[in-house]
């Protein structure tokens, strides 16, 4: 094992929880990850030692809070390979990050007849903001289809991204299929056609090394809660030149330089996009989450998940009545496995597994069009993270078998 998983598990208090009489087997990481002690401690430390509003305060607490808040921004910048902390905007989650781009950049730049290109693997948060931008602006939304085996159809991407395209948006890892998309290649197609590229890193930033400069994308979004961080905070990275040219979206304290009743002037990046008191505590805790992941090394995180997913795919092969929705081979694939049983409905399976302490997600995983393309309306999904073990995979497979025995007896 690349990671010392037992040592890691000791950092996560929730992992010693029992569900009924069973130890918790948490396999719902694509929905949200658990949090290590270090992240929880960062919150407690902030609230018990130096909680204060940031920016422009002359007192010690405010100075300390401001320094920690901005240090966290710099940590995130470094973590995703952004040269300037000013290119990191705190949002509530990646959904807000995408909305910010669709409104601020989109409403300024997208005109009737333009095209917006997304992939068939987007989350609702990566579909609806663009769909609604298209409706507002008179642009058309185009979808890059998936292949039979659940990868992105790159030939179709080449055909669909044209001079009419204004922006291309793609997940770096599908939250349903686990597929890793070559967003660098997609971004090149976008740029060759004079379009911008937004990468949805909700599932990639927690699980793979990310370098936005290397990817060459114009925007990159993530949600802290999926990568050991707290709920309520996410990030939009934007290339500084692009962000500079965008108008602010939300208005209020902190994002202005000067205000009269007639007019207002905007603060510098990144503050121009951060209206009101920011989520100070959770930003600082996100810094702690990023510290934790950086200390493990994202290459090691990725290797661990490749190993574990490989093991899981092997064991899933034992289940004859179970169909996987994503790629069956372990290349370019993350630790997310969606599946359907030929008889047992995902909900019944989910409830049964929960009785054994095993937490998976069931439903459309906020990606209805993708799930429907497999001719089902709901699926079960197991997703792994740094603290998951092969014996938890065994528990899942055994649990599915036990459920079969129960329902099909």
């Amino acid at each position, binding site marked *: 094992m690349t990671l010392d998983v037992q040592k890691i598990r000791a950092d996560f208090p929730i992992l010693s929880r029992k569900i009924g009489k069973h130890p918790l087997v948490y396999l719902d990481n694509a929905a949200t990850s658990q949090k290590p002690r270090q992240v929880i401690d960062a919150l407690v430390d902030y609230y018990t030692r130096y909680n204060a509003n940031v920016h422009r305060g002359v007192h010690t607490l405010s100075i300390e809070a401001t320094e920690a808040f901005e240090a966290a921004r710099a940590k995130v910048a470094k973590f995703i390979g952004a040269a300037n902390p000013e290119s990191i905007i705190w949002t509530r989650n990646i959904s807000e990050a995408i909305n910010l781009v669709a409104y601020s950049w989109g409403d300024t730049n997208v005109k009737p007849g333009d095209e917006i290109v997304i992939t068939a693997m987007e989350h609702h948060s990566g579909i609806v903001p663009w769909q609604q931008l298209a409706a507002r602006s008179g642009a058309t939304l185009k979808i890059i289809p998936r292949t039979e085996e659940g990868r992105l159809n790159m030939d179709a991407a080449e055909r669909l991204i044209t001079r009419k395209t204004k922006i291309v948006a793609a997940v770096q890892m599908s939250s349903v299929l686990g597929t890793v998309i070559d967003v660098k290649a997609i971004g090149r197609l976008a740029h060759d056609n004079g379009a911008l590229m937004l990468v949805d890193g909700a599932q990639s930033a927690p699980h793979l090394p990310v370098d936005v400069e290397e990817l060459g994308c114009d925007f990159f979004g993530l949600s802290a809660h999926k990568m050991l961080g707290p709920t309520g905070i996410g990030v939009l990275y934007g290339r500084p030149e692009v962000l500079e040219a965008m108008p602010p979206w939300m208005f209020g304290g902190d994002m202005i330089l000067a205000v009269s009743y007639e007019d207002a002037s905007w603060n510098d990046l990144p503050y121009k996009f951060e209206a009101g008191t920011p989520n100070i505590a959770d930003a600082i805790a996100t810094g702690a989450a990023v510290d934790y992941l950086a200390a493990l090394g994202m290459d090691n995180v990725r290797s661990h998940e490749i190993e574990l997913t490989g093991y899981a795919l092997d064991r899933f092969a034992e289940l004859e009545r179970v169909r996987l929705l994503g790629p069956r081979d372990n290349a370019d694939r993350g630790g997310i496995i969606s599946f359907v049983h030929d008889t047992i409905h995902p909900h019944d399976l989910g409830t*049964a597994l929960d009785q054994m302490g095993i937490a998976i997600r069931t439903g459309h995983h906020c990606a209805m069009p993708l799930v429907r393309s497999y001719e089902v309306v709901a699926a079960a999904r197991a997703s792994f993270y740094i603290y998951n073990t092969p014996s938890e995979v065994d528990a899942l497979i055994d649990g599915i078998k036990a459920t079969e025995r*129960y329902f099909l007896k």
Partner: protein
Amino acid sequence: MTGGTSGLDDLDELYESIILDHYRNPRHTEPLEHPDVDVEANNPFCGDEIHIQLELDGDTVTGVSVSGRGCAISQSSASLLSEMLEDKNAADALEFVTLVRRMMRGDTLTEEEKDILGDVAALEGVKRFPVRIKCALLSWTALEDSLVNRAGT
């Protein structure tokens, strides 16, 4: 890790044998030729789908068909509903729905009320699984809406 079916003992509370029986052998699935009531309901979050058809003679249910796809709870609940409807009139059916709702909410029911519920009482265990209550009530809510709408027009 545990393994075996041992972990699933508590499941019996949710999946009573009556429920599993209705799930495996749903009743009244034959579509009706000339339905007076024809209603579809679905829960987009779970993907549960239910299709209810009724033939009425005045206010009395003379024919019923229920079909759909989805989880054991939604489908068996719909099948139980189809049995309940036999020869009921609309007013009694509506009262029955209210009783089912009250059971799901966890109200204490009188012995008499439990008697009225009959096999449907098998759904009572669902109330301990709050996220599944929606599945259990899907068909009952659809029936209620369609009967109320019909009365309204």
